[in-house]
């Protein structure tokens, strides 16, 4: 008898709390918080945690709080697949943010699409949104845009012969493919094509070989720490040939690692990298500076473009939920496809049924490194 009374009381209590606290909107995220891609995944996770708090402090979405279940895939493709399975089948999320890396995104896309759950990848590979899969979107700008930015600069400088030096991982391979296509297509001559391993610690052999082909400029495509080693080796060998880096090292961390060897290097980067140096006329400046400041205060770490991918994927999902007035996966998908001129950290997003990448060529600016700080050398 007593048991029954307690049970009734419990049920009543439960019903009461449920009525007061609206059920949260549940989103999932699969990020490479540890492992080789943690330099991407960790700022993404931090940003999502920070922005969820901000959104909830401002009343959430549809009058309900937002909850993001973040799973770490350890930069491992099997773990990414398991994590997406868990989000779909166990956590019942309405949409998925991430994965962080292109490989993991390509591996899990099929699962999300089959379950009809929209997925907003934080990675850059073109294959993710080309051909367009109705449920798959991405926020990281394609490598093509970054390469185009470099080549425009090189053309203006009058360079003819280019050499490329790329890292042999997913990021470097994607860059290398685009470079090998665009460098000849834009009228340059590709005189050397070298690679280095992601854990390699000495690139003097490659640089010596490249020097033998006497290029006008070298383009190095990789993520820390490889490119910093390349920069140091270049100085060590006394090479004066101009060196372009990729947006993969667009953070203060690179300048710190390469030290004096970073002086004079050039790279394409998202506006967030040098937000405080943007002209005041830039429409995005206030948003970017605000985000950079908040991130710096909370995590005591310099802001990077990568965290911006977390910001963009989360805010796009929340925006779509608000626009749709529902957190049904199908409705989120439809609303995502209609989003126009949404100001994000990576640029202005406009999705269409034919374009699920949403960014234009203005996503990148050209930066130089001078006295250990960024200078904008081309908008």
């Amino acid at each position, binding site marked *: 008898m007593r048991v029954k009374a307690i049970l009734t009381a419990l049920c009543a209590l439960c019903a009461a709390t449920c009525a007061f606290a609206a059920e949260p909107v549940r989103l999932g995220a699969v990020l490479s918080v540890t492992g080789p891609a943690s330099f991407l995944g960790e700022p993404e996770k931090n940003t999502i945690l920070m922005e969820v708090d901000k959104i909830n402090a401002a009343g959430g979405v549809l009058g309900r709080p937002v909850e993001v279940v973040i799973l770490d895939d350890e930069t491992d493709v099997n773990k990414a697949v*398991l994590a997406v*399975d868990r989000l779909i089948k166990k956590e019942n999320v309405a949409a998925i943010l991430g994965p962080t890396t292109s490989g993991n995104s*390509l591996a899990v896309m*099929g699962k999300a699409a089959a379950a009809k759950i929209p997925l907003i990848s934080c990675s850059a590979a073109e294959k993710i949104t080309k051909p367009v899969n109705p449920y798959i979107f991405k926020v990281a700008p394609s490598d093509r845009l970054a390469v185009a930015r470099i080549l425009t600069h090189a053309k203006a400088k009058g360079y003819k012969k280019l050499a490329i030096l790329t890292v042999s991982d*997913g990021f470097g391979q994607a860059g290398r493919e685009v470079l090998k296509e665009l460098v000849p297509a834009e009228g340059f001559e590709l005189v050397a094509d070298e690679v280095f391993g992601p854990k390699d610690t000495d690139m003097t052999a490659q640089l010596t070989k490249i020097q033998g082909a006497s290029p006008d400029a070298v383009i190095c495509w990789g993520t820390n720490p490889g490119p910093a080693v390349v920069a140091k080796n270049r100085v060590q060998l006394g090479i004066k040939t101009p060196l372009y880096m990729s947006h993969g090292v667009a953070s203060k961390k690179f300048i710190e690692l390469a030290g004096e060897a970073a002086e004079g290097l050039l790279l394409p980067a998202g506006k967030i990298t040098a937000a405080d140096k943007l002209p005041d006329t830039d429409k995005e400046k206030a948003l970017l500076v605000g985000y950079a400041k908040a991130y710096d205060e909370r995590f005591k770490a310099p802001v990077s473009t990568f965290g911006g991918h977390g910001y963009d994927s989360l805010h796009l999902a929340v925006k779509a939920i608000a626009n749709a007035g529902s957190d049904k996966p199908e409705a989120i998908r439809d609303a995502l496809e209609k989003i126009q001129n949404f100001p994000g950290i990576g640029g202005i997003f406009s999705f269409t049924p034919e374009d699920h990448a949403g960014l234009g060529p203005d996503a990148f600016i050209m930066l130089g490194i001078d006295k250990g700080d960024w200078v904008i050398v081309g908008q």
Partner: protein
Amino acid sequence: MKLPVIGQNAAQAALFLLLLLAVPYTLPNEYYLSICILGALNAVIAVGLNLLMGYAGQVSLGHAAFYGLGAYATAIATARFGLPIPAGMAIGVSLATVVAWVVAAPTLKLKGHYLAMATLGFGIIVSIVFNEAVDLTGGPSGYVGIPRLALFGYEFASDHSYYNLMAVVLTFVVLLSLNLMKSRTGRALRALHVSEKAAASLGVDIAAHKRFVFVLSAALAGLAGVLYAHYLSFIAPASFGFGFSVQLVVMVVLGGMASVWGSVAGALFLTALPEALREFEDIDILVYGAILVLTIMFLPDGLAGGLSRLSRRLRRLRRQGDAS
């Protein structure tokens, strides 16, 4: 009545299969099935590797390469050249087998740590080829668009159907290994593990037996590879690197050397452990390492040895209980 050995094995295997097939109905959520499928794939490789390591006493730190060769061969054959899936699978397993056969001759002459180094080097060379032969393998970003497994007009589209298939395959591999070890070949392998000289003086062809078991274990790894490729529809070189080879060895040792059931347990345990440790968030890696160290410290014969000791102790307790 006592069953003959082969019959005993068959009975154990049948029971095992029934148990495996019943598992999905006890799981609270279909997500756990994905873990079981990956666990079963790893178990197939671990059982094969244990034939080599536990019974014949030959180390391999390169088995991830055979797993990868199987996966890439079927992926390229089916997705690129449009061959039917069974043909792709046959090519995958054959490639792993043939490569193992070629590598075995010079490699198995080496002993101990030199053998470990040679297999390790072989594994690294293969994984570099997966990474660098971009035109063929898709390079580091992986190979997309591998068709999901379909045999004889039936597509294993749901995870449950794929799991059932894996249960049957794993049971078959376990039965094969149990019977092999009870056979003349199995006894010869164990003999050469204890002393190659003694085995040779008894007329065992050392080189041929070593080569046979090496090729068999590579073929099983290749089989797991093709099943993995057609399950995930996506493969990347990172899954077939040195780290995975080491993990396989850990599965075998943690499960228990020279125990077929131990390898199954070790593989399932190490596959499920990281998922179970998700609750620990950041420190999960520390807990994982600690569990690994403590298990080996306190269960020197692995999970299999630990379980059999436990069951012996329980039996003794029961007997004491009966007596009192």
